[in-house]
């Protein structure tokens, strides 16, 4: 694990990034596919002010807008035509691009693509997709969710992007992680691969293993990092399936079996093997924080926001590494590569960033993606802008959002029951 005195290392701009940035700004690099995948692991993306970031990704946004218009016409239905022909030149132009939604938002005269995509899911795969791809349903394996297509190269970019969050969580090469996630879901798979890329030794939980076995495996493997989930208490009680493996189950098994103390729940001398707990799902629920405080000796924890459509979107930092910072638990720094994340509100015909303290729609644009191209896609989540860029004491420059919620409560339940949280 990274030590607090080494935190500054994650704030440094990589020298190779500067060279890359020059190549982009000088027009020598205009195709996102030419970007080396490992560049998405560079912290520099999160150290750029918006004014410098946007010009860097603009060529690729322009590229993707053009592709989306041509290669996914049924989904974008001509909405991008005005921007596809070199009309996208500035941030102001970008703000005029309409939102894409899955379900109609009549209050904003936005028409969704669900109907079209449900009848023919392949419409979400660009016609010019250069390679084989895998479809991941959003909202988990609930079936009728619409797919996001990703190629191997897309996977590599997102996995590298996730590595930035691993650094913010303090994970280093040589650590050992065990995760209980459902690996039939994109999040579970990406988690596994990103940890491998990051140099960790990775252990997974087999579906048939119960909490006692997981704890024993933690001990045998010497894991110091745990990736697991925790649903809200009420949801956990109602859904037997999703409560199968989560932090609550692991804490319960630790409490009942004195021989398993010291792994996750501290032993009588206060010792604990696990140094960091990644708690995924949609957000760390209050019950998860309660477990950490009451039973786990306030173990370090953080999370990453991501979905089948886009990984990563935002992440909190390890509180042990960033004491005094705001970006803990559910306060998340935006991560702008390989997807551009915005929190928007309507302003006339445009969708513009919210002001600090305001809540808006969470929107992402996949500027480096072979598969399904999202251009200002609002999946139905909202977030509140907590801090403007540069305001967080931790030193990561990107804005901090909080209170991420799914606007449709039913969808939230579905994620917890069927999604990667259903470990």
């Amino acid at each position, binding site marked *: 694990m990274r030590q607090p005195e080494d935190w500054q290392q994650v704030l440094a701009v990589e020298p190779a990034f500067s060279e890359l940035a020059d190549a982009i700004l000088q027009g020598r690099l205009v195709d996102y596919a030419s970007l080396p995948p490992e560049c998405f692991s560079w912290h520099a993306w999160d150290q750029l002010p918006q004014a410098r970031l946007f010009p860097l990704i603009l060529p690729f946004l322009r590229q993707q807008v053009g592709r989306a218009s041509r290669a996914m016409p049924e989904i974008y239905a001509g909405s991008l035509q005005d921007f596809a022909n070199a009309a996208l030149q500035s941030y102001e132009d970008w703000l005029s691009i309409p939102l894409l939604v899955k379900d109609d938002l009549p209050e904003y005269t936005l028409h969704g693509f669900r109907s079209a995509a449900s009848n023919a899911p392949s419409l979400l795969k660009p016609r010019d997709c250069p390679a084989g791809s895998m479809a991941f349903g959003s909202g988990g394996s609930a079936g009728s969710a619409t797919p996001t297509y990703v190629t191997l190269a897309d996977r590599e970019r997102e996995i590298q992007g996730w590595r930035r969050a691993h650094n913010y969580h303090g994970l280093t090469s040589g650590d050992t992680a065990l995760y209980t996630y459902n690996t039939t879901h994109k999040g579970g798979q990406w988690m596994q691969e990103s940890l491998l890329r990051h140099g960790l030794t990775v252990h997974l939980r087999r579906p048939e293993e119960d909490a006692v076995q997981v704890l024993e495996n933690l001990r045998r493997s010497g894991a110091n990092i745990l990736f697991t989930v925790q649903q809200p208490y009420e949801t956990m*009680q109602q859904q037997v399936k999703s409560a199968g493996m989560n932090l*609550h189950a692991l*804490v*319960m*098994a*630790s*409490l*009942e*079996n*004195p021989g398993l*103390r010291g792994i996750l729940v501290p032993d009588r001398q206060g010792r604990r093997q696990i140094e960091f707990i990644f708690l995924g799902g949609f957000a760390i629920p209050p019950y998860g924080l309660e*477990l950490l405080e*009451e*039973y786990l000796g306030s173990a370090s924890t953080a999370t990453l926001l991501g979905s089948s459509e886009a990984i990563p979107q935002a992440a909190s930092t390890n509180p042990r590494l960033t004491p005094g910072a705001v970006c803990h638990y559910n306060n998340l720094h935006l991560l702008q590569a390989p997807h551009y994340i915005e929190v928007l509100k309507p302003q006339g015909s445009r969708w513009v960033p919210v002001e600090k303290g305001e809540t808006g729609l969470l929107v992402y644009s996949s500027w480096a993606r072979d598969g399904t191209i999202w251009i200002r896609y609002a999946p139905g989540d909202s977030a509140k802008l907590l801090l403007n860029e540069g305001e967080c004491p931790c030193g990561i420059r990107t804005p901090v959002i909080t209170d991420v919620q799914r606007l449709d409560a039913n969808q939230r339940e579905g994620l917890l029951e069927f999604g990667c949280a259903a470990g």
Partner: protein
Amino acid sequence: MLIQGYLAGKMHARKTFTVKSIFYPEYSFQVSDATMLDVSSAIGAARSAERLIFAERLQRLDAAADAFHYSADVLEHTVKMSGLPIKVVRALLDEIPGWFRQVSQAWQEKVKDQPEYSGTPAEIAAPGADKLLQPVEGYCYAVGPANDPRASALTAANCAAAGVPLVFKAARHDAAAPLVFQCLIQAGFDPSALNLLYFDNHAADAPQKHHKLVAASSLTWTFGPVVDVDRALRYTTDPEHPGSRLDLFADRRVLRHANAACSAVISGELDGEMRRFLDASLGFASGCTATRSVLAVRSPDLPEQIAEYLASLKVGDPLQEETQVGYILPGNLDYLADLLQKHALSIKIHGGRRLSRQQMSPVLVTGENDLPDFFGAEIPAYFLAVGQCDSLEQAVRRINSSNPGEPRLAVSLYHQPAAQAAALAGQIRAKTVLLNQPTTYVAPYLHEGNDYREWLCESKLIIKDTNQPE
């Protein structure tokens, strides 16, 4: 008032729920509501508890007896929740230290601390053979009854003496239990061995909590009717075979409640001594050791005298010191009223005037036959069924025949010829037979008819040298 449990020695009330008195509607209080993780913590604590050696356990039990005390608040609370007269409640709570000492003494008399067995109690089973009593592995899960404030003391004292860690789920209004656990912990027992939980039986997750505790225990101790206990504790759904049930009692010891329906055989006139006997036999009307039926041997005037005695009892507000007849759960009085009506043509009824939802003047019933509804049942109210017999032998036969099910919890033989009583005691179908003592004086180390000194332990026989037992 806040009633809190004990987890590994610490009082806890992370969440609470509200309980109201049926008898005093304006009275309510908060009770700590153990979560599933509290249940897990209790299990873990009990599994890791230190077990003291035999001599230390008895010493600390005696010390706990000296330390037990209760406040006026607890006394008043218990009256308001039980409906029992304040004098009766005070007497019950005052018995608790004595129960600790009785349990300690019973162990000392039965077994010896023999250093050669490293503090394990042993009794001489036969010449050349010692029987070691070793506490069962694991822990005991006990579910306390709602009708006896001494229940936690009974259970905790026996488990402490035996050296068996305990998780006790108390009735939600049991304010004496924390005091019992507190004095035992202060006396030096490992706090991890004495865990006290409260949770709402009506909550959706209550069955889960019970089942988890039962499944993780090696010994379950229950109070209450078998049907009710089985419904709440015994069966759980089988996760491997949906639609099927698992019998959690199948592989573990279960201490169960005997059939109460306590009875007494008495002779003579209703003098002062007999009045005191009846006071003690009947005063704790909602308790399972109260006498419910009496057979008068060669005492034809006794039924009328007892009826007059019952009519003379002061009926009133249980909080008043002079009250002798308190409140009873409305449902129990409804049941009694229905029973009396059902058998109206077969019995003669004395008293039984319904004064309110929760109060009825004491009832005495006489009849030609030993109606099982009256002579073989436990009716938790101020009620007595009285019959006539020509001899003690006949009384014993009638006691046995009117109760064909489980043996009665206790039978008292009062003012009977000593030699005859002793000779017939073994024929009575009862767990305890008391000679000249009321049925409410059942010993705390043998309350359910099971000798807890044996039940809470595994026996191991040590046969020494070449002296074989005969």
